[in-house]
């Protein structure tokens, strides 16, 4: 495994994304639209519901964005890339790329929700740290499931069914941590939750890296 390869693959992904601007635009529009719907549907948003709504929109826009991470490329192009790179490098670059996309989504979402409703975040450092750790975990799960499904025809149906139960533990932890960042609850022991979340991320990441080489040739 070489970092140079990972870097090249990452650059390739970003370049493709940059060329097909409509995908990025669609994700941004999805986020803004759902924030707007919430603004219209909820007359008054409390910090508690803000917290949950944030994660739900985050989840579904992330699902929308990441669903194509393995099916977007043509299979021939795939074969070519697989000739050149180690499978571990491919999944690593995908996970990093998807984490970046999810972080971008979350920043846009924070801005859009704050613009339309309220901005209840008190502890930005904790909130952003939680979002980053959550992005890593969720993107690892989504990327792995997308890799499992690969080029299957029923992919979009199965994707949500397979990936949503997997991220529930991460999501529950995230909601608890961000509730702290919004000062809804006050838990002095939040550090252990962050460490637990980081641990889950690390384990999922490790398992995805180990298993993917068995999957990629299918």
């Amino acid at each position, binding site marked *: 495994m070489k970092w140079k390869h990972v870097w090249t693959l990452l650059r390739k992904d970003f370049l493709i994304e940059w060329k097909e601007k409509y995908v990025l635009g669609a994700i941004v529009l999805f986020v803004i639209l759902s924030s707007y719907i919430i603004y219209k549907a909820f007359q008054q948003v409390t910090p508690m519901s803000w917290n949950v709504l944030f994660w739900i929109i985050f989840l579904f826009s992330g699902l929308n964005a990441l669903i194509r991470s393995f099916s977007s490329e043509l299979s021939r192009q795939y074969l070519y890339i697989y000739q050149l790179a180690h499978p571990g490098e491919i999944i690593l670059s995908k996970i990093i790329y998807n984490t970046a996309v999810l972080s971008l989504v979350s920043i846009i979402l924070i801005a859009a929700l704050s613009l339309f409703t309220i901005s209840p975040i008190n502890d930005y450092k904790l909130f952003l740290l939680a979002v980053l750790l959550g992005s890593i975990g969720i993107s690892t799960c989504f990327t792995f499931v997308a890799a499992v499904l690969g080029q299957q025809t029923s992919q979009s149906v*199965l994707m949500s069914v397979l990936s949503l139960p997997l991220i529930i533990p991460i999501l529950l932890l995230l909601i608890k941590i961000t509730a702290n960042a919004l000062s809804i609850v006050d838990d002095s022991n939040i550090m252990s939750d962050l460490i637990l979340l980081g641990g889950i991320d690390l*384990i999922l990441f490790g398992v995805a890296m180990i298993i993917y080489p068995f*999957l990629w040739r299918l």
Partner: protein
Amino acid sequence: MKSLWWKCLCIALLLYALFVGMLTPLKPGILNISPFLVSSGERVSMEVEAYNVEAGKEWQAYLKKDSLSYLKASAVELTNGKFKIDFEIPSHIPSETSLQALTLLITDERNGTLVYPEGIQLKSSTNESTSSWLKEGHPRLYKKEGFLFPYRNILRETIRNMYYHVPLWFSMFILFFAGMMCSIWYLKTKKIEYDHRASSLIYSGMLMGVLGLITGSLWAKATWGAYWTNDMKLNMSAVSMLIYFAYAILRSGTEDIERKATLSSAYNIFAFITIVPLIFVLPRVADSLHPGNGGNPAFGGEDLDNTMRAVFYPAIIGFTLMGVWLGQILLRIKRIKEKIFFNKIDF
């Protein structure tokens, strides 16, 4: 006959769990007390409904605040399974708070000690407090000997569910773990046999999990008062069942045998890895009604005494073997199916 011994063991263990678990009587206990609110300086006469008591030799009753403060009853009388206990509560009580929870202890040489933990509220009218009630030394508390299950206040007879509900989760976890090992082995060797083994084990583990949910909700109705509670452990196990249902959907949604095997093996390993924090780590983050969480006493201490262990551990082994057995039958069906598919069988 060689492969039959563990099936016979399974049957024997399950029958043992059924008969010993159902037929062993409980120790005597207290069903309810009236009145449960007493105030200092008054003379109260309590009606206590007892469970499973036999005629005693010499009954004694105590109100206990902590291990240093006991108050002895002036008179204890048992008629028709009901106690009538008189207490003369002094005006000076060893407490600074105006409301103090007390434990009622009724003891006898033949029946052992009946406990009603923190079931009596003591209201103090005066602000004076003494340091201790204890004057006559520690009361003698008897223990009922013999092979009997402990009596727990809200659980009562449902303490027996311990042998039929909890082992289901243990066996589910063992079966899922074995399934994951088979999946790993499949990815290593690419022999379809291991995928059959993994999926059979997973399916029988799912049966155990679903039964665990159903039995759990029946037990919850009897003790917590509702079929479905917001309990963390309960919801986490429901989620873990969802993950494995997704596994089943993935398997039925893929046509090609080898592809199905590889994809589901990979998903299975990943799923098990996410189950581990789901079941063990997260309930410790949030509160749970289950023993061992959120301030509830864990297994091990008083809840699982030696008589219960003698049934509980065999039940775990019995249910696990049952799961393996059910999985094995499914596995054999799959093998035959495969042989028919490849026309390897002579009819």
